[in-house]
């Protein structure tokens, strides 16, 4: 199933604006260049989620999610493979390693990074569309596979989803992550 070309272009432009804001913010946090891929847009049902090509590595990812509603309603997610999440936290706490007993530091740091990047992404989209987005909860942190998380949270197997994602990476720091926007309904 395909989105009409006009809607696909609108969504791509929107995510591009949002992802550029997120990448710029990440750049400021890490003081390192951030490369951004062209956003990809998918229109699919729950059982088709396996077709998604999102880099996660071998382990579970650190995933921060932020729900939103308005004319646009859905969830924004930041997906960080574990190695990237660990590296990111080490940089944010001044270069020292975080051991497993300090897991609370890892979770707090990644949750706040997710909050800043996803709020930036969604805020840029809202400003572009002259809309006001309401966040439905504070950011939530989980360690899971993205596919598993999406399949678990999407109750209706027949519901049609619009999913947009763009990859960010900092070649100098070996950190990569994916910004995902999942729209439950899209009304332009």
């Amino acid at each position, binding site marked *: 199933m395909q989105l009409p070309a006009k809607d696909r272009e609108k969504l791509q432009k929107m995510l591009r604006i949002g992802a550029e804001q997120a990448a710029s913010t990440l750049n400021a946090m890490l003081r390192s260049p951030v490369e951004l891929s062209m956003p990809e847009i998918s229109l699919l049902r729950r059982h088709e989620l396996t077709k998604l090509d999102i880099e996660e590595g071998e382990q579970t990812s650190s995933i921060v999610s932020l729900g939103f509603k308005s004319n646009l309603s859905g969830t924004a997610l930041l997906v960080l493979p574990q190695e990237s999440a660990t590296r990111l936290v080490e940089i*944010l706490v001044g270069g020292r390693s975080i051991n497993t007993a300090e897991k609370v530091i890892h979770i707090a740091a990644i949750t706040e990074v997710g*909050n800043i990047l996803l*709020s*930036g992404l969604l805020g*840029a989209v809202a400003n572009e569309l002259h809309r006001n987005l309401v966040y439905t909860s504070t950011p939530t942190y989980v360690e899971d596979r993205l596919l598993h998380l999406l399949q678990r949270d999407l109750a209706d197997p027949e519901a049609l989803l619009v999913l947009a994602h763009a990859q960010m990476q900092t070649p100098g720091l070996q950190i990569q992550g994916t910004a995902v926007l999942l729209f439950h309904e899209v009304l332009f």
Partner: protein
Amino acid sequence: MSNILVIDDSWFQRANLRAILEEAGHQIIEAENGRIGLLMAVKHEPDCVLLDVLMPEMDGITTLRKIREQKLAMPVIMVTADIQKSTEQECLTLGAQMVLHKPIDPDSDTLQKAIGLALEG
């Protein structure tokens, strides 16, 4: 030196703000949500409040409204990841002195300058 109340649900963000502000010689008290922050604002009457927007229990906009309803006149600086123009306008209309967007660079003087301006009135 000023007494500054930092209201933010993120422990990580509070720790960052504390480090920046203590280095500048300020005394810091912290609250993890707006409900506790409002109680602390009434009890301690800090010179300035740094207030996050998206928080559990009581969000920053409700907290700001209640601070002004209680006739507390200290300057409030919003420190938020929410970059929506509508959010910024609402905060300023409700009496915030200014809105700063996260992340706050620890090596820049943005935060100290904002606090200095807010305290000058």
